[in-house]
């Protein structure tokens, strides 16, 4: 993105922002609450005024946005249903079932979202995003409501399925960023600027116990801590 400007009325979120997201890799965004991560993601998704959208994206918002009248399975297939492509829909259904099984909702396919717990809803939303099969994937705090173990499993799943795609992932957990991001950027300031790209070595998903990562982790925490909210 080049010279982007994000503002809500008087409130300027970003100005003259130029950022590069390497193709086929996962970039993790970190930053204090309210800095503008969601806004940046929405800009990339083409959801803000004046925001161009280059390629098809899959977008997972901070809230789950499941449709209450559709079953879990139908929610996951929403994109195919909306595009109305019957052939693709039929093909995607098998994929959706597998994904739902992988996020641990195999026995909840026909439930309505209101019957799920918060974390289950988030997992369904994650399955929907990954089911979309798009070159660019944008995810806003996809694992926020998940327990530590499920989170690790789903990080693995995401890393596997995001391979080869350009992904931008917002998170608040520096370890998570280090685990799944090829590149990590810390946003700070108001209007925000992006810090230098941090590129940990090794293939994703990395082992969080790796001492090299722990060093980077300390650096990231310090970087975040030094910032005004």
């Amino acid at each position, binding site marked *: 993105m080049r010279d982007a400007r994000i503002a809500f009325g008087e409130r300027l979120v970003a100005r003259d922002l130029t950022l590069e997201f390497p193709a086929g890799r996962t970039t993790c965004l970190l930053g204090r609450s309210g800095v503008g991560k969601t806004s940046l993601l929405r800009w990339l998704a083409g959801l803000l005024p004046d925001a161009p959208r280059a390629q098809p994206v899959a977008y997972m918002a901070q809230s789950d946005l499941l*449709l209450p009248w559709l079953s879990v399975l139908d929610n996951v297939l929403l994109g195919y249903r909306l595009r109305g492509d019957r052939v693709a829909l039929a093909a995607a259904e098998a994929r959706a079932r597998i994904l739902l099984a992988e996020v641990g909702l195999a026995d909840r396919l026909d439930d309505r979202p209101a019957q799920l717990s918060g974390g289950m809803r988030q997992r369904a939303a994650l399955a929907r995003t990954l089911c979309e099969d798009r070159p660019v994937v944008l995810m806003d705090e996809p694992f926020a409501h998940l327990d530590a173990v499920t989170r690790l499993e789903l990080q693995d799943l995401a890393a596997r399925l995001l391979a080869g795609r350009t992904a931008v992932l917002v998170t608040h957990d520096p370890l998570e960023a280090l685990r799944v991001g090829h590149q990590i950027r810390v946003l700070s300031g108001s209007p925000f600027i992006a810090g230098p790209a941090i590129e940990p070595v090794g293939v994703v998903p990395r082992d969080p116990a790796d001492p090299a990562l722990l060093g980077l982790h300390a650096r990231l925490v310090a970087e975040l801590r030094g910032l005004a909210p």
Partner: protein
Amino acid sequence: MRPLITAIGLLLGWEALVWATGVPSYILPPPSRVLTVLIERSDLLVAEAAWTATEMVVGLLLGLVLGGTLAIVFAASAGWRRWALPLVIVSQAIPVIAIAPLLVMWLGYGMASKVAMAALVIFFPVVSTLYDGLRRTNEGWLDLARTMDASPRAVLLQIRLPAALPAFASGARIAAAVAPIGAVIGEWVGASAGLGYLMTLSLARGQTPLAFAALVVLCLLGLALYYATDWAARVLVPWQSQGE
């Protein structure tokens, strides 16, 4: 069971009203007299009621379909909305007496003109509530659909419409409640049958109890239609909230 209690409650309230206000019976007859007439003339009343009930139900269905379609068209196209919405509003302001001759010219004296009249009375609440519902879809869902490259048509039919169904149910309930008056107004358009016709005729002849017997039947039809619609709305639209 409930409807029966309700009916009895209504009758008691009415009897109390007559007693309390001392209205003469040729203006508001007491339920006891109306009941007698109701039983004595039940064959006549049933025949007229069948006629009016048909008008009501057909009018309601037509109104729901027309109103629903129009609301969807309005939500889909700003052009249509801009030009046709005022027309729709104006259609509500036109008293039947002004357009009755037109309707009769185009539709004749048969049931068609009555159904048209009833549908005209009914369809506005449906258009209005459904269109309002279609306007206030959760922004998040719309954004999501946009990232999914959904056509406006798909967004309308698969997201905005289901989200607006509770509002549609709300409109349908209003429509069901005004359906009886719609049918009666329709019978103004040159009727020679129906409860509304019977009522006018008996009022003119000073047969107030018969008129009120017809009115009671009309109200019962109205209640039945309302509760049927309410029940259908609950069964067909189990999710309630517009938002999350």
